[in-house]
């Protein structure tokens, strides 16, 4: 019995004892909601055991989660789109719009032929429609919202003021970053210098993103700790 298995059994016993106490004191109701909270707490602690070491308990819960998540999304796709729109309109619908979704449904079924090697080439028709249409929708909209709409605020008159100074800095930054991602000319001499400035701007924006991300991840930890301390253990005031 290695040290880890002692830890494992110790954890299980402690977990059972705490839950028994909570149930006994009525802090957690002995109904489905209560069992739900206990289950969620158990799963949360098992996943946190990964911080100590990658262990069987972590792998068990991780794979359980993968299976449940896959079926959850399947349920949604069925009830929200396949049933609500396709099945209901094709079978129960009436009048002219009953068959309006027949063609896209056939095209969708074509996509599933990719799973059958012999007729997998049929799925290319569906993929060609999805990817081709997607590409066509992208081009004019990216030009409008990512090139034109982003250029216009950088083409404002420079004034002798803080905004003017900021505009100049933004101008230098945008041009320097674009020169950094320029591949037709060697990064030497003037181009090298400008792309160096580009790297500094990139580093500031990566630093800002890193600083922001710390908060994002911590919020998730705070959320889970609030769940453990409040909903489960009821120790928060």
């Amino acid at each position, binding site marked *: 019995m290695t040290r880890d298995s002692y830890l494992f059994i110790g954890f299980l016993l402690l977990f059972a004892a705490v839950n028994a106490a909570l149930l006994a004191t009525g802090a957690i109701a002995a109904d489905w909601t209560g069992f739900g909270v206990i289950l969620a707490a158990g799963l949360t602690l098992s996943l946190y055991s*990964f911080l100590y070491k*990658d262990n069987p308990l*972590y*792998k068990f819960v*991780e*794979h359980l989660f*993968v299976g449940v998540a896959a079926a959850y999304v399947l349920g949604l796709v069925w009830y929200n789109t396949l049933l609500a729109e396709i099945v209901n309109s094709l079978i129960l619908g009436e009048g002219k719009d009953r068959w309006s979704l027949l063609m896209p449904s056939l095209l969708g079924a074509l996509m599933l032929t990719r799973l059958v090697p012999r007729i997998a080439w049929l799925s290319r028709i569906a993929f060609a429609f999805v*990817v081709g249409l997607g590409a066509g929708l992208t*081009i*004019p909209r990216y*030009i*409008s*919202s990512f*090139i*034109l*709409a982003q*250029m*216009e605020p*950088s*083409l*404002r*008159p*420079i004034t002798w003021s803080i905004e003017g100074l900021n*505009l100049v800095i933004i*101008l230098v930054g*945008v*041009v320097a970053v*674009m*020169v950094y*991602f*320029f*591949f*037709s*000319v*060697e*990064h030497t001499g003037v181009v090298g210098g400008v792309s160096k400035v580009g790297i500094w701007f*990139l*580093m500031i924006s*990566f*630093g800002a*993103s*890193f600083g922001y*991300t710390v908060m994002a991840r911590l919020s998730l930890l705070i959320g889970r700790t609030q769940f453990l301390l409040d909903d489960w253990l009821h120790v928060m005031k």
Partner: protein
Amino acid sequence: MRYLPLCTVILALCAQVHSQPEPAPIPESRPELRPEPKLESRAESVAGVEAFDTPNDAGGSITVTWPKHPEASASTMYTVFLADAPSGPFLLVATVGADGSLKSDNPGMFGHDADNSHTHFAHIEIFPAVGEDEGTPLIDGKAYYVKVGLSPADDSVIPSSDGFGVPSGNAIEAVPGGNFFNWAKLNNFILGTFICLVILGYISVARRKELYIRRIAGLEAIDEALGRATEMGKPVLFVHGLKGMESIPTIAAVNILSRVARRTARLGTDLRVVNNEPIVMAVSQEVVKEAYLEEGRPDAYNPDSVFMAAPDQFSYAAAVAGMMVRDRPAAHIMMGYFYAESLLLAETGSTTGAIQIAGTDAYTQLPFFVTTCDYTLMGEELYAASAYLSREPRLLGSLKGQDVGKLVLIFGILVGTLMATFQMPFLTHLFTSY
């Protein structure tokens, strides 16, 4: 490159054309101005009224424009009347205040002419039914007649919908209809066509002759890392991103993998390729086997070196992190599109002292790779590296075409800001999404 000035001139010409809306179909006669507004049942009519089908729309709408009245005061009210017959009952459809909608508020439709800022406009979409409340939308192709009145400041003449207060003078005819080109999107159309032609052009050029791309520093770092791994006799770990085979970053990663595999075959270093998706694994196996064949070392290739670690995000990261700590490879090469697990991989990798080289276009994950890896291929550098290695015309040409696009945008920003600073907002108007 010499076509550049020519294209900018074309852009300039077209933008000029676009900013003058086509004149109203029937030139109306100009009613002469009365000496001074007399108090009587008829409101005084406004001069210079124009009415035409609203441009850039699917139809069912008329636009009426009229210049500001010379003695318009703050409380002046313009009244717009509509009828479906030249003499028919004129019904009130819109009232516009002195500070109401000006043509300069909508440059997408009316352009940027100087006198736009003192010309009012109004869109009419509903023909008011007499009596019941529900108006009916205008019918395309049907002629409607418009009159614009000026109700005096002291609103003694209260415009009402039963014809009282309708100005004298004859009405202006207009016919609503759907339009086949959205002139407000002209600059978008020209810029898009220019970019597409440049990219497609360079792709066809790249098929015929070699195109120059600057050396990518990250690739040297990879060669150096492979060399060091060989000296230490330790394996090299190649880690794929999470996206599938159809995604661009994964295609780029496989191109880089083939270069790495060719080098490890020549040096005899042990290469491990970790995957999380069956199709990517199958393609990677083919690529590595091919590389070992080309280097004349088919015997050195062992199929188990390219394997599935785990199918989903965090179990994949945990499995790979475990390998990094257990087998202690000398180099970690992480290429493709990564999500939040990038931090877990790179942070664990940095603890083993191995050389880490990453390449991803997942910009949100770049801060983690930049802080933990020895070298990071950032965003488009991943594509450039794959083009540099694979020498495929479609990748080289596309990259060069995008470079020309960047040049045009850089030129646009620099000159545009300069011109805007000297009150010449021409380029600012050109590069605006209407």
